[in-house]
């Protein structure tokens, strides 16, 4: 599909995408964000796109993810978890050596948490999230159902969310665990 074709899809579904952005928490910025969505989506569409509307939805969703991430780093919330990756981003300010070390420890801990769920969950999560393989293909590779693949991914994500919550609690001023590492 050409950019012109994509534009026709965008124009026809602009209101629907606006509704999605609002449901996604864009608030008053929704109108601006839908414009920004189009600029980014049209700039990136170099080849034929299989499902143009789904592609625009994904672009809108990623816009909200990037927005949330930058708001978080500004507010210095979720410090441990954000540090785990900000030190790896070329765009970020150079982190102190101490912070970089903390970030690496947190990443290692995330890896441990997934590994503890067992080899199969570890493999499936890695295939899906790190290597970008789809659920359907993972199911075919392993000879299991898509539902089973999703069950493993559920466990992995729940464990990571749990880790993130524990790190946030450790950051809370009232916590006696602050600063300690096992």
């Amino acid at each position: 599909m050409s950019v012109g074709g994509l534009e026709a899809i965008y124009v026809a579904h602009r209101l629907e995408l606006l509704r999605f952005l609002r449901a996604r928490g864009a608030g008053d910025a929704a109108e601006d964000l839908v414009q920004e969505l189009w600029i980014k989506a049209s700039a990136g569409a170099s080849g034929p796109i299989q499902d143009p509307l789904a592609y625009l939805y994904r672009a809108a969703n990623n816009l909200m993810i990037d927005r949330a991430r930058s708001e978080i780093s500004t507010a210095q919330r979720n410090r441990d978890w954000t540090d785990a990756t900000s030190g790896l981003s070329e765009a970020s300010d150079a982190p102190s050596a101490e912070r970089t070390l903390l970030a690496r420890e947190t990443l290692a801990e995330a890896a441990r948490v997934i590994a503890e769920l067992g080899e199969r969950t570890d493999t499936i999560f890695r295939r899906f999230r790190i290597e970008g393989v789809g659920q359907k293909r993972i199911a075919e590779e392993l000879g299991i159902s898509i539902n089973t693949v999703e069950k493993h991914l559920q466990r992995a994500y729940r464990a990571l969310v749990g880790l993130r919550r524990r790190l946030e609690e450790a950051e809370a001023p009232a916590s006696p665990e602050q600063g300690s590492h096992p």
Partner: protein
Amino acid sequence: MNTHILEQAIGWTVRLREGSAEEWRAFTDWLEADPDHLAAYDEVQRTDAALGQIAPRPRPVIAGQPPAHLPVRSRRGWLVGGGSRLPPPMRLRRSPARRAACSLPMAAAST
């Protein structure tokens, strides 16, 4: 946070990777049904996005081509755990293709 809602939020995160427009509409309905849904989804996304900075997001699906996959080397990436002692940034540097994928503008529109 309600555990059931968190599970739903993770389910959307997983399924929308290759979601159709119809699934995105159903997701919009789900978000509008209860403010807690957005909060749960945001929490999963913050967790997921942190991983996204060390592993590039999947590329857009181009018609007629299989989805782009990372080099085989990435199978021994950071999530293997206990394997390589190299910190993640060093492994990223060894793979210019991955770095390029991370910095492409459309990395922002591909999951």
